[in-house]
């Protein structure tokens, strides 16, 4: 491996890590790791060991969504290897840079892990197969075209000879990587497209799986941190002497301008001392901000003159003025924390000439860039070893504040590895929150109840303006219109409305927004799909029929909607006391719809059943797509039922799961998943069904109670009959 950096002088910094790989399953230690990567690679994606073990390199991060297994299936499919011999490893972002980004994009967000890499990873598998076959053919002095590979065995039928991948891998690794790599037709898939078991399950059952929080390095110390509860307020003073004598405490250090950390032998000692440490922060203008002031600012945006236009047809305002019937409603969506089960953390080791980080990152390359900047070192003197994530949901994709802090702390103790772990309270107070928005919707019906005009004004935060301002277009955040776009493969509006205006009044706050699983689709789908229900009701029409009339030009949107309506029995009587609601949306390249069945008994909501349909084009592992759909409803319904981060005095009020509740097993509805891939595109699955979770249930709640819930979470609303 020509890209291999020199072996670190500290043997514990593991040959595997030094070779540019962090293993997904174990923190490699010494000889074991050396043995694991001793075999030469066939190409960047495939290593085959003499014992026929197949190591498939995975650039995207595994955080529960199953991408690790799905990508391995795609490589294995073309490789024609024995699936039972497949293992995986992560290349490091440093190795990726050193090799001219041979593994391409590491970003694991936007439900893109598979849909944006299926082609080149399959080519990687196919190229490796061709090289292995060529190596066998060379040995046998026959034409490669006469040889075939299946199940890790290469055979030459005319002579009856056969060999295994492991026996020819070394010779194959010396061959040139082929340029022309044809791929198998999807109909011939044997491993991809099948419900194989996840590769990472066994270690998750015994405590063996190492998450970032579990990283152990010799001589490592632990850090606990407190950042200003009021976002952005600077540290005025802290009294380190007060805690210097506490058990295990090694050092108290400032972290940037706003935070202080205690370094100790154990994290519990660090946390105990941090809780006892007097810290004074400067007064900040931000302390004037509350949920009320933010809501007032958003309300002003609902009617503001200036707004960015995301989708426009005809003249919505004129058509509304002339409509036989006008319907208007204002909706709102709160801040929410990702609340990954594993709080933010990272381990860093800094020396004047090198910085290494072990982190639960959704994008190793961003983590590396943040590491280099915080370390004050060139990027080629740094590397990041990705460790399994205890949940990501977008929190660990763009913002790598936890990495920046870990490096900043480690830099103050050169040569000592420091593991920084946030308490749950720190995690709740320093999220990258689901953006806060309000939306005013105005619809116009003609005398026959046809929708002739719709104006949808979104007022609120832009994630992009805060985190990725380079993606603004003349000040406009195009991501705000997720699922509302006039067309395109990513998230197209599913209705044909002759007079349409969807616009955004950007109103930002000091509370930092982030990409929260589903992102802007979550509130956009609630606003649009609940309002479509309101319009259908105002028109005196069935909610499904009302939508269908507008969806003639959008057969894929309609396809998933029809599928859930048929399965749930729409139009037929529901069980006694049970009421139904529908929703559809398109995002991250996939079409999704849901039908919900609920009952409301003396104000108590029970969600009995969800039918969810997904057209994601291709399905690589059906049972794992089903798992994502089931989990998406837990995520989306937790948000709908309970979740809200409120602001008081410039800070978030909710600090733990006692005030930030999550749906538990007793509230889990039965989720029936319909997968209906049309085979002509590649869409994502990690997020899309979240979009339709809340609107389908909210529409069912209206059917049950006659109450329109226009602001979340539901816990604030009384569903008892008036």
């Amino acid at each position, binding site marked *: 491996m020509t890209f291999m950096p020199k072996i670190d002088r500290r043997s514990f910094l593991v040959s595997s890590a030094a070779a540019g790989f962090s293993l997904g399953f174990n923190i490699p230690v010494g000889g074991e790791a050396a043995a694991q990567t001793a075999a030469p690679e066939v190409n960047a994606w495939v290593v085959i060991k003499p014992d026929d073990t197949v190591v498939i390199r995975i650039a995207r991060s595994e955080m529960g969504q199953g991408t690790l297994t799905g990508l391995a299936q795609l490589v294995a499919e073309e490789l024609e290897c024995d699936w039972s011999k497949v293992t995986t490893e992560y290349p490091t972002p440093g190795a990726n840079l050193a090799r001219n980004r041979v593994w391409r994009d590491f970003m694991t967000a936007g439900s893109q892990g598979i849909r944006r890499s299926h082609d080149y990873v399959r080519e990687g598998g196919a190229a490796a197969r061709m090289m292995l076959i060529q190596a066998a053919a060379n040995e046998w002095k026959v034409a490669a075209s006469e040889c075939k590979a299946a199940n890790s065995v290469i055979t030459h039928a005319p002579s009856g000879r056969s060999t295994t991948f492991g026996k020819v891998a070394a010779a194959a690794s010396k061959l040139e990587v082929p340029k022309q790599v044809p791929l198998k037709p999807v109909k011939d898939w044997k491993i991809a497209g099948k419900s194989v*078991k*996840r590769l990472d399950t066994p270690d998750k059952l015994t405590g063996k799986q190492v998450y970032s929080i579990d990283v152990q390095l010799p001589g490592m110390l632990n850090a606990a941190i407190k950042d200003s509860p009021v976002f952005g307020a600077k540290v005025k003073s802290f009294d380190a002497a007060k805690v210097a004598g506490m058990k295990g405490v090694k050092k108290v250090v400032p972290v940037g301008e706003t935070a202080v950390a205690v370094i100790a032998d154990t994290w*519990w000692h660090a946390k105990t001392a941090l809780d006892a440490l007097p810290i004074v922060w400067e007064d900040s203008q931000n302390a004037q901000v509350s949920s009320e002031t933010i809501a007032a600012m958003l309300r002003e945006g609902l009617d503001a003159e200036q707004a960015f236009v995301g989708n426009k047809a005809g003249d919505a305002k004129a058509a509304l003025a002339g409509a036989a019937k006008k319907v208007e409603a204002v909706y709102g969506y709160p801040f929410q924390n990702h609340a990954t089960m*594993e709080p933010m953390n990272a381990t860093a080791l800094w020396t004047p000439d090198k910085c290494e980080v072990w982190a639960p990152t959704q994008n190793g390359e961003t983590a590396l860039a943040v590491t280099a900047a915080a370390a004050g070192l060139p990027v080629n003197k740094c590397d990041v070893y990705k460790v399994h994530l205890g949940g990501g949901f977008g929190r660990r994709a763009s913002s790598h504040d936890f990495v920046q802090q870990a490096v900043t702390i480690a830099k103050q103790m050169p040569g000592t590895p420091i593991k920084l772990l946030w308490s749950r309270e720190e995690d709740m107070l320093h999220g990258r929150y689901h953006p806060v928005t309000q939306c005013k919707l105005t619809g116009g019906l003609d005398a026959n109840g046809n929708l002739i005009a719709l104006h949808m004004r979104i007022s609120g935060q832009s994630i992009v303006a805060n985190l990725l301002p380079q993606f603004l277009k003349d000040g406009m955040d195009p991501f705000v219109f997720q699922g509302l776009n006039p067309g395109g493969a990513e998230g197209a509006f599913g209705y044909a409305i002759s007079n349409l205006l969807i616009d955004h009044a950007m109103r930002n706050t000091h509370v930092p927004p982030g990409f929260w699983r589903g992102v802007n689709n979550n509130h956009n789908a609630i606003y649009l799909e609940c309002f479509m229900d309101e319009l259908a009701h105002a028109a005196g029409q069935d909610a499904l029929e009302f939508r269908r009339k507008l969806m003639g030009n959008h057969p894929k949107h309609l396809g998933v909607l029809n599928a859930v309506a048929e399965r749930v029995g729409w139009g037929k009587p529901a069980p006694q006391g049970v009421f139904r609601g529908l929703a559809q949306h398109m995002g991250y390249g996939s079409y999704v719809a849901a039908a919900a069945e609920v009952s409301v008994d003396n104000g108590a909501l029970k969600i009995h059943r969800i039918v969810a349909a997904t057209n994601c084009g291709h399905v690589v592992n059906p049972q794992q797509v089903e798992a994502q759909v*089931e989990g998406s409803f*837990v*995520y989306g319904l937790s948000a709908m039922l309970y979740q809200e981060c409120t602001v008081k005095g410039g800070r978030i009020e909710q600090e733990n*799961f*006692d005030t930030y509740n999550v749906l538990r097993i007793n509230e889990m509805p039965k*989720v029936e998943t319909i997968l209906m891939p049309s085979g002509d595109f590649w869409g994502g699955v990690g997020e899309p069904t979240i979009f339709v979770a809340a609107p389908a249930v909210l529409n069912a709640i209206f059917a049950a109670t006659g109450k329109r819930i226009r602001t979340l979470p539901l816990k604030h609303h009384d569903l008892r009959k008036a």
Partner: protein
Amino acid sequence: MVRLIINGQSREVDVEPDTPLLWAIRENVGLTGTKYGCGIAKCGACTVHIDGVAARSCSIRVSDAVGKQITTVEGLAHNGVLHRVQKAWLEHDVPQCGYCQSGMMMAVAALLKEKPKPTDADIDATITNICRCGTYQRVRAAIHAAANA
């Protein structure tokens, strides 16, 4: 210094008596399968067995666990044979990120010990662990499978 019995082994642990059991297990004993999630006994990621009963180790002092049989997820399998809960979890491919699953499986193993054939209502009343990935549907199916194994 306290003496703890963890997974059948007696261990000298150098911690203050009021240290939460979770941190003694993770940091002093070095068994990291037991997870930190909230520190206030709300999420269940830290669930272990104390004398066979499910307990949230983040909110139990080490001094209160002295002399008791503590079992962590690392001790759930017996002589290298997976517990029927682990087998059912494997069969149903339950974990997603997996971070909560140590605690989830420990809670379920304790439930099955008490109620070998739990009803859905038993499960609803007993299994209050948080899973942010949302594996509940498979957790329920796997509990029934383990009960019938």
